[in-house]
């Protein structure tokens, strides 16, 4: 019996009992759909994170000073010297001092984070000011208490009014607003729009710490990021004499870490969803066993007409594979649909991967074949005369 005929027969018997076919496929449908949904969402998540990191610049290198076991700190002058000494590798730098503050204007107040930076920061991190100006060299030099606020602060503190030139209180000290950032994340709380930049020299006071723990540096060439990091590490080692006292990380390294993390989370989730595929396979096995019993007489007739073991085997295997792959296709369609639905509801990026779709499809065919094997073998082994007598 040829493939085409078996396939046509399989489609026919699926059509003949749609409800039963659907219930048989349900496990596969759920399994495949959940795999597709999870992969699409995880993929979207990792794309989101990657692009967020990329927007911070893949050429950004972060230096953290933990200062463990030593009182030595890293000064701004030392970093500046490093950048000047390595013009082929390093382009710009900025200290980064973070502090949590309560910002007040009039009766309005918000809790937010203040980031102390220098005049290169906006350039390095593609921060765009829509009104007013960003922090300048003179501000850091004179420790001016000025600030650039995000759109979240602009709306929360000032409502519709123009904040430029107004003064706000950060933990009680008075700062003058000199700029407002461009909106990038719908002005939501805790988003990229919820931030206040001040000169790093002023921020050390807000952070209650004289030393600067974090520096951002930009590499000239993203392709030579490794070498650039080595240069920084060497300098850091010469300063601290202890590898544990500092950490040098690059954005591209972080992107890799995040991708690895999301990939392994996805593996676990897909593995869990895969259990449902196995359950679906058992459903198929169950229904195929029923179908073999129901069609015992047909098997006998076919054998009396010259069907060999392998012919019967193939017929039932193709039927099982057709059932499960039909379930697979439905699952893929539902899964992609549901992923986009969920993505829209949860405001997440959805990125179905065609690899995952292809794998889901082949896995569902394989499940049908594996779980269909036992019933098919049972049918193939039937003694023709016993099968013919069956009713």
């Amino acid at each position, binding site marked *: 019996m040829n493939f085409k005929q078996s396939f046509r027969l399989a489609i026919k*018997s699926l059509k003949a009992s749609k409800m039963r076919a659907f219930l048989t496929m349900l496990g596969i449908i759920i399994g495949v759909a959940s795999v597709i949904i999870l992969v699409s969402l995880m993929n979207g998540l990792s794309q989101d994170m990657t692009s967020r990191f990329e927007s911070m610049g893949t050429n950004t290198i972060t230096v953290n000073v933990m200062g463990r076991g030593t009182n030595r700190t890293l000064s701004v002058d030392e970093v500046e010297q490093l950048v000047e000494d390595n013009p082929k590798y390093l382009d710009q730098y900025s200290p980064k001092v973070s502090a949590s503050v309560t910002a007040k204007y009039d009766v309005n107040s918000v809790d937010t984070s203040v980031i102390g930076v220098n005049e290169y920061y906006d350039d390095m991190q593609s921060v765009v000011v829509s009104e007013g100006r960003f922090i300048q060299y003179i501000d850091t030099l004179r420790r001016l208490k000025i600030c650039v606020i995000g759109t979240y602060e602009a709306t929360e503190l000032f409502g519709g009014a123009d904040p430029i030139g107004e003064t706000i209180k950060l933990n009680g000290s008075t700062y003058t607003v000199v700029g407002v950032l461009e909106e990038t994340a719908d002005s939501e709380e805790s988003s990229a729009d919820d931030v206040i930049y001040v000169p790093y020299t002023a921020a050390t006071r807000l952070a209650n710490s004289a030393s600067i723990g974090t520096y951002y540096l930009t590499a000239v060439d993203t392709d030579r990021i490794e070498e650039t990091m080595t240069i920084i590490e060497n300098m850091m080692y010469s300063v601290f004499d202890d590898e544990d006292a500092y950490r040098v990380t690059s954005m591209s390294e972080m992107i890799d870490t995040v991708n690895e993390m999301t990939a392994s989370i996805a593996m676990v989730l897909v593995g869990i969803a895969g259990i449902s595929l196995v359950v679906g396979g058992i459903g198929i096995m169950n229904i195929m066993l029923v179908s073999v019993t129901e069609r015992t007489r047909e098997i006998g*007739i076919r054998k009396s007409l*010259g069907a060999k073991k392998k*012919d019967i085997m193939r017929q039932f295997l193709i039927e099982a594979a057709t059932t499960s792959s039909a379930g697979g296709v439905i699952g893929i369609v539902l899964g992609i649909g549901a992923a986009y639905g969920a993505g829209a509801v949860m405001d997440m990026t959805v990125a179905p991967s065609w690899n995952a779709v292809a794998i889901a499809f082949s896995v569902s065919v394989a499940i049908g074949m594996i779980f269909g094997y036992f019933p098919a073998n049972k049918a193939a082994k039937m003694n023709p*005369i016993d099968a*013919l007598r069956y009713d």
Partner: protein
Amino acid sequence: MIRLEDVYKIYQMGENEVRAIDGITLEIRENEMAAIIGQSGSGKSTCMNIIGCLDVPTQGKYFLNGQDVSLMNDDELADFRGKTLGFIFQQYNLIPKLSVLENVELPLIYQGIPEKERIELAVRALEKVGIADKKLNMPSQLSGGQQQRVSIARALVGNPSIILADEPTGALDSRTGREVLEFLQSLNEEGNTIILITHDMGVAEKAKRIIRISDGKIVEDSGHSVPEQIEVKSYERTGSIKGAAAAAFGREGTA
């Protein structure tokens, strides 16, 4: 062509054994038309199933076209069933979810005959039994007599040399039954070997040879209806001229 040598089929039913076939030795020659008769439960179907390679004897030897069937594996038996044997069952045994044409195509599918040729042969077989106009119907849309004709077409389509019919007229009214019998006779005249089971003497008389079975044993055999061919000399008791002529020339007619 068909030779059973001291064949037994014994079913063990707990303590006691049922001897469905209790030592049968039987030879059926090419182009014979033999009727096996006997009471219900006498072992007719069991005998035919063994001849048809659907069942294997508990004991004894069975030679089909000179080959020892007991030495064959399942696939070789299946091959024999597909190419050499054609079955007509009392209950027609058509596959309900396949159309008439698809049912008739089945033996050819298992022989690996390409689709175009398959359909051609199937239509020709349906024409032969006069039911080609129903080829797209489903079996359930046909009357009993029509279904039996379809099953005859299916038995014929692969041009098997032996046709086995277990009570082919059992479920038909007498007129339709007669038509089927006449058809089997004409097939025999064309050179097919036909073995027919019945418990109706009127039906059996249409065959040239009558074998009576009782309690799994042959109790009466009217003897070969065709002479032994070629090498072996003629020791048979009867033989019709017509049968012999058919034996000599008939195969060319159907080949």
